[in-house]
Structure formats: structure tokens, C-alpha cells
């Protein structure tokens, strides 16, 4: 007679419990804010939480600015995409310098660390003081009033510069954290297998950094897409990026524009979630992430 024995779980029956319990408070709080906020905004955009009058299910708020929304979406996506690319290129380059461990790497790490705690609104004010046509650089390189429209111009350069500067420091520190523990040993191994600097960058350092770069790029993209203050301070009055439009509608004297503000916010959230979903789908295909 054979005795059937229970196979013990490799992790033990209750080893997951303490860890789960420890994250519960943070998860509950985050879920309350995120899910609660989204449900409220969704309900308000669908006319279920009107400031005046009876609730009535309608999608009218989504069509109220049908002419402006496509431009707003395109502009928001463009600002977020360009800012993310700039932040990633600058941040990754900074990370490569930092992991070399030389004096310039320490200097770049210090500059990056100092940049992180500066609030975006202070950063936006600084960029304005630096790049505007009445700013420091324009005065320093006085060229007879020919200073380009970097702030409030058609190319939103001031906005991209602010996001690129601030977020590149974030990308640099995240990628440095990933590369610091293994980049040097893999880099040396690749060098001894005959790979020159550029080959090592292409075949080793970029692939090794890609998961961290993807995660930080997604965070930068979603942040640049959803935050209003930099675009509001450094951008043009029209066309408006989505978060600036949502803020204007939310603060408008017309009480009926609250659902329209909520509709714009929901659209922004959908775009952000699509970006996160695409990013996770890409990461799942990556051998390093698995």
C-alpha cells in the first residue's frame, strides 16, 4: 500500500502573511485615493454628481469641447513624449557617468540628488527666469530683441526643458541603482570578449538598463501628461494641454463645467493607463524582467 504524502509548499504555508499585512495600510490608502477619486470623477463626468439639479446619466460633458479635445490630446501626448525622451537620454547618460565612479560621476550624482527635491513649480519659475525673452540668458546674450520664444512659444520648449531637467535626475538615479551593482562586471566581461565602448553600450549597457529605463520613462510620461503647473506657467494660453484645460474648467464660474473638467481628467487618466499597460506589456516580453 502506498501512502500519499502531502507536498510541502516551498515557501511554507503562511510565509506570505506578514509581508501582505505590512503592505495593507499603504495599499488601502492608495486604493481609497486613486479608486475613490477616479470613481468620483467618472460619476461626475457622466452627470451623476451634478452641483445643481437632479442626477442624470449623460455623456454630454465628453462632447462639450469636441473641437478642442483632439488638439489638447495631441499636445499633451507630444509634450509628454518629447519630455520623456529628453529625460531618458539625459538621465541615462548621467547614469553612465555616475557608475564610472570617477570625480565627474560624483559631481553628476550630487547635482542629480540636489535636483530631485526641487518642486516642479519652483523649477518652472526658474526656467522662466532663465529662458524667457526677459530672462537671464536673453539679457546675457543680448542680440537685439531676437531671442527665440522658448517660454510661451509655439514649440513649448520651456515646458519640455523643465520636465527634461527635473525628470532626467529621477531617471538617472533609478538607472544608476540598477547599473551600479552589475554594470561594471558585465562591462568588463564584454570588453574582454572584444567589445569596444560603443558595442558595450549597445549590446550590454542599454539592454541591462532597459527595464529600469522603461519603468522610469513610464512614470515620467504619466507625470508629464497629467500635471498642469509647468504647462500652465510656461506654456501658451491656447491650445491647452489636457490638465491645464481640466484645471480651467474646474475653476470656471460656470457650475456646469465641473462635469466637463471631470471628463477631461478621465480622458487623461485613460491615456495614462494605456501608457502604463503598454509599458507593462513590453516589460513582460523582456527576458530581464521575467
Amino acid at each position, binding site marked *: 500500500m502506498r501512502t500519499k504524502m502531502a507536498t510541502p509548499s516551498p515557501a511554507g504555508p503562511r510565509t506570505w502573511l506578514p509581508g501582505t499585512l505590512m503592505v495593507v495600510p499603504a495599499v488601502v490608502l492608495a486604493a481609497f485615493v486613486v479608486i475613490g477619486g477616479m470613481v468620483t470623477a467618472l460619476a461626475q463626468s457622466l452627470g451623476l454628481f451634478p452641483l445643481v439639479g437632479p442626477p442624470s446619466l449623460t455623456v454630454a460633458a465628453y462632447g462639450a469641447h469636441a473641437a478642442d479635445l483632439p488638439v489638447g490630446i495631441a499636445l499633451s501626448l507630444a509634450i509628454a513624449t518629447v519630455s520623456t525622451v529628453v529625460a531618458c537620454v539625459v538621465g541615462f547618460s548621467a547614469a553612465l557617468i555616475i557608475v564610472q565612479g570617477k570625480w565627474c560621476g560624483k559631481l553628476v550624482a550630487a547635482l542629480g540628488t540636489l535636483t530631485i527635491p526641487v518642486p516642479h513649480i519652483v523649477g518652472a519659475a526658474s526656467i522662466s527666469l532663465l529662458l524667457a525673452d526677459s530672462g537671464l540668458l536673453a539679457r546675457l546674450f543680448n542680440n537685439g530683441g531676437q531671442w527665440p520664444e522658448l517660454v510661451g512659444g509655439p514649440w513649448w520648449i520651456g515646458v519640455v526643458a523643465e520636465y527634461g531637467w527635473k525628470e532626467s535626475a529621477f531617471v538617472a538615479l533609478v538607472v544608476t541603482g540598477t547599473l551600479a551593482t552589475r554594470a561594471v562586471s558585465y562591462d568588463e566581461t564584454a570588453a574582454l570578449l*572584444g*567589445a569596444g565602448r560603443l558595442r558595450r553600450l549597445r549590446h550590454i549597457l542599454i539592454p541591462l538598463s532597459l527595464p529600469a529605463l522603461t519603468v522610469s520613462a513610464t512614470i515620467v510620461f504619466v507625470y508629464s501628461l497629467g500635471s498642469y503647473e509647468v504647462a500652465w506657467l510656461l506654456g501658451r494660453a491656447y491650445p491647452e494641454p489636457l490638465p491645464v484645460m481640466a484645471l480651467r474648467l474646474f475653476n470656471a464660474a460656470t457650475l456646469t463645467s465641473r462635469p466637463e473638467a471631470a471628463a477631461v481628467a478621465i480622458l487623461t487618466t485613460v491615456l495614462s493607463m494605456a501608457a502604463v499597460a503598454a509599458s507593462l506589456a513590453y516589460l513582460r516580453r523582456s527576458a530581464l524582467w521575467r
Partner: protein
Amino acid sequence: MIPGVSVEGLSKSFPGTRTPVLDNVNLTVEAGTCTALLGPSGAGKSTLLRAISGLETPDVGRVLVGGQDMAEVLPERRGMAMVQQRPLLFPHLNVLDNIAFAGTVRGVPKKAARADAAAFLELVQLEGFGRRPVTALSGGQAQRVAIARALAARPAVLLLDEPFSALDPELRAAMHELLAQLRRSVNPTVLLVTHDRSEAAAVAEKIALFSGGRMLQHDSVERMYSRPATLETSRLMGGANEIPGIVRDGYHHSVLGVLQLPGDTRQPPGPGVLLVRQESIEVGARNGIGILATVTGLRTLGPRRQISLDVAGALMLAEVPWGRALAPGDAVALSIPTSVLAVVAAPETARTFPDVGEEPQITGQGRNALASIEN
């Protein structure tokens, strides 16, 4: 043509250290041979390997490969490959693409590089593993892939930095055999860093022994064991028996009696310490011919036993196989062939080791006997 490697007067210090990590190292490794860099941790072996590969810049001295000075040559252009204790397989590439890496970065078309890699995968007996992710390999398999990857780069010089130290004994023996097989088919010049004497003897033709950043001796494996140049070398090679005495006319006079020295002994007449490997002493019955001794202790060393002996006041160790009943207090006769004897300078020239006594072990009776010989 496979080049040899020479190191001339190489010294290296790191900031914050008082003593140099490498101190005036001179070493010549002949083309196509394997030399083990042996020594305790912190002896400077790995730093020497990194200096040879170009990953460290020496403070003084130079590295020559095939007679060419490597000072201005980047690591990627030195024609070397290194396998370290950790396999360091690139985690974003599968097994085959790891091995094909050197070909890929040389600009070989991917298909051709992979076909070449498949041949090396077969050489390390891992055919069929090519499409696996490197995370799906065991430690031994990963190390085999690392060796295949290094060999696929067609290195003229293969640098092995304790590549087998994390493997279990059976796997290590298999890897030693694999390395011997690979050397027969590819034949690069090999430098192997290890702190394991058995591994050095199993894999290399020559051993370069390091301690405190200095190279103590570079010689064939047999001579490193049988003809250590100093007490320090003898102790690092595991030698246990040091008998003080006097060298006169090709003979060593000590408490063991008068023993004829091998013809290649270079020790000048005068005080000298006789070195006898514990594995070379034959322990027989008291009624046999030999040096009389008394067993003072027994210790099991796996398939062999270590016997502590009192030989006219000198405390010695011998290793014998199982099979003969021995107990403390037994009287035995020792037989020591002349060819296994070596003599080195007196102990005051030896460096101090924390776990080994400075003076050879000797009892009061032995000391009196030695005094009578010196007089």
C-alpha cells in the same frame, strides 16, 4: 600562433593601502601552457590577472604578450578572455547568444556567429541548451557556458579567476577534465587563479606561488612540492615537517641522523632546515629498516590518516592509507627516500604565519640532540 605572457617588474598599489597589492612581480608563462597563480586570499593573484587583462593599470612594470608591450593596448584588443568565479552570463541574452557575443561584436553575421557558438556549446557538452535563458542553468552549466563564451572569442590568452571555486567537488573534477580537453583542442595560454593546491596541481603544468603581493616561486608542480625554495613556500604548499640541522658535504645532520641530500640541493654548508613532505614518509613496523619513531596521535583525513610522530625529539607528521592498525604509543620505523628531501635556509628568514609556529616543532630532547650536532 599562440603567444606567451610575460610580466616584468609589475607593482600595483590601491589608494588607502599601506602595502602594495603587487610588489615587483616577474613572471613568464610559455605559449600554450597553463600556469596556476596560487596563494592565500589577498595575495594579489586576481589583481595580477586584472593587470594582465588591462582592467587594472600597473603603477610600475609592464605586461608583454608575444613580446609586445600591452601598455597602450585596450582590454578589448589584447586577445584575452576571462572567466571569473561568477559566470557573469549576460542576462538579456539566451545561452547561444551569450556564446555568440564575441562574434556578434566583431561584426560576424548573426547566423554565422550562432553556428560557431553551437560548436562551442557542443564542446562543453551542452548541445541542445542554446535557446534556454541563462537563468534556467545550474551553477555548473552556467560556468560551462561562460567557458564556451570565452573560448568562442578565440583568445590567445585565457584568464581564469577562480572559475570553479563555487562548484561542488564532483563538478569541479568534471570541470578540470573539461578544461584539459579544451586545452587539447583549442590550446590557448592559460593563467588560472586559485587558492586550492589540489586544483593547481590538477590543472596546471606550473605553479606561481604568491603571498603578500610577492611571487615566492614559479616552478613545475612537482618541484613546487618537492623543492620549495623557502620555508614560506613549503608551508604555503602544505608542507608540515621542518627539521633543523646542519648541511655538510651533501648530507643533512639532524635528530633524524645523517641523511644524504639530492644532487640538485643548492643549500650552502651550514645551518639548514630539512623539509620532508608528510605524504612521502613511509611508516613501517619497528623491526624494519628506517628511522625509529613513536606514534603520538592519529587524525582522520578522509581516505588517509595523519599520524603525529616523535622522532628522537622532533615532532613530525606523516600521512598513511587505512589498513594498518596504529595507535598512540606504537613504535614504528620511518623510511624517507633521498629524492623527496629538500633543504632551505634557517627559520629566521621565514615570514610569520598566524597559524604556523615560527620555529620548527621540537622537544627538549630533540633540542639537546640538535645542540650536540651543531657542536
